[in-house]
């Protein structure tokens, strides 16, 4: 399926640089040779260790924190601090956060980030051990880029690289990608039957529209994502 990559927002990698197309009039950020920086948020030490390694081995720079509050502090978004910029000086290119955390949940963190004018552009990925349709929907509607069911695998992380590449997603494509058949449910959750969705995707308003041909109409929207296949170029 043809996918039109509009611009490399953060960085260009060897594989997708060739496919990135510049659209006239659209500002292209200079590609830097640095690794993308991911802020990982998880209250579990075991999971932090694993996600950190998964990210590093996938050529990301990683900062791992143990709570939503710390994540906000790192970003400089903590209520107590008034500065809107100025975390450690390291730009954050992606945030990956656990859903279930004491204090501030990943969902609450997501909302805070999307409410911030400085940081709402940063893609946020939610991780959760529980494959609950309403939870996934809520997160996606709030602007989460992806929802990964734990335990996180190398293939999940490798797919994250694509968020760094793609500035724009065609809305119908987006809906199709975000709702795919559920794979094996390993937990004793009520089985999630297929459902059609009429909710629109949660595109950030600042993303430029893609002026290219849309793909053919998406397949019927099925049950929620377990593992999203975001790109055919894997």
């Amino acid at each position, binding site marked *: 399926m043809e996918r039109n990559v509009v611009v490399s927002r953060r960085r260009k990698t060897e594989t997708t640089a060739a496919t990135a197309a510049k659209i006239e009039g659209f500002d292209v950020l200079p590609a830097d040779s640095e690794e993308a920086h991911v802020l990982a948020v998880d209250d*579990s*030490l*075991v*999971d932090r*260790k*694993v996600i950190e*390694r*998964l990210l590093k*081995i996938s050529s990301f720079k990683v900062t791992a924190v143990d709570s939503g509050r710390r994540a906000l502090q790192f970003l400089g978004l903590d209520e107590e601090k008034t500065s809107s910029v100025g975390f450690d000086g390291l730009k954050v290119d992606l945030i990956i956060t656990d859903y*279930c955390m004491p204090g501030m949940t990943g969902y609450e963190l997501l909302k805070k980030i999307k409410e911030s004018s400085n940081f709402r552009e940063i893609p946020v990925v939610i991780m959760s*051990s529980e494959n609950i349709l309403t939870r996934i929907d809520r997160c996606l509607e709030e602007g989460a880029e992806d929802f990964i069911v*734990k*335990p*996180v*695998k*190398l293939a999940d992380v490798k797919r994250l690289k694509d968020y760094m590449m793609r500035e724009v997603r065609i809305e119908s494509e987006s809906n199709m990608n975000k709702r795919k058949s559920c794979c094996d449910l*390993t*937990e*004793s959750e009520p089985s999630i039957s297929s459902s059609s969705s009429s909710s629109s995707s949660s595109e950030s308003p600042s993303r430029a529209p893609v002026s290219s041909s849309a793909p053919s109409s998406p397949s019927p929207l099925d049950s929620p994502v377990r593992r999203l296949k975001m790109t055919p170029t894997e």
Partner: protein
Amino acid sequence: MDVMTQLQRQWREHTAYLRKEGYLDDQFEQLQKLQDENSPDFVAEVVSIFFDDSEKLLNNMAGALEQKVVDFKQVDAHVHQFKGSSASIGAMRVKNLCIEFRNHCEAQSLEECVRCLRKLRYEYSLLKNQLEYLFKLEQQIRAAVV
């Protein structure tokens, strides 16, 4: 067969055994993929964190179940955490027991919870022994290289 080859075979067989018996699932293999010359002790490090974490959680569960008025939500919170970390390292049997345990928490059945905790402790100690043996083999393999 030299010592090294023997040890490596033992390691392979033991890993296969753990998979076959369901102690470990695919996720453990995922972790092994993350181990390389840059991070040669990765799996052992994660598992070590897991052991510390587990023992703490098991004690927390026991404590919560011993209260005069048992807060099943609290028990469930500990089990949920344990389920998560065991899933993250591929400890399948432990994870499945946690799932069962959570059902008992939801049903607020003290007797079942206590029984389940006992099973969980046992299953966890089995796993710990198995993994410690595996890591010991790895150490011996590394020593044999020198």
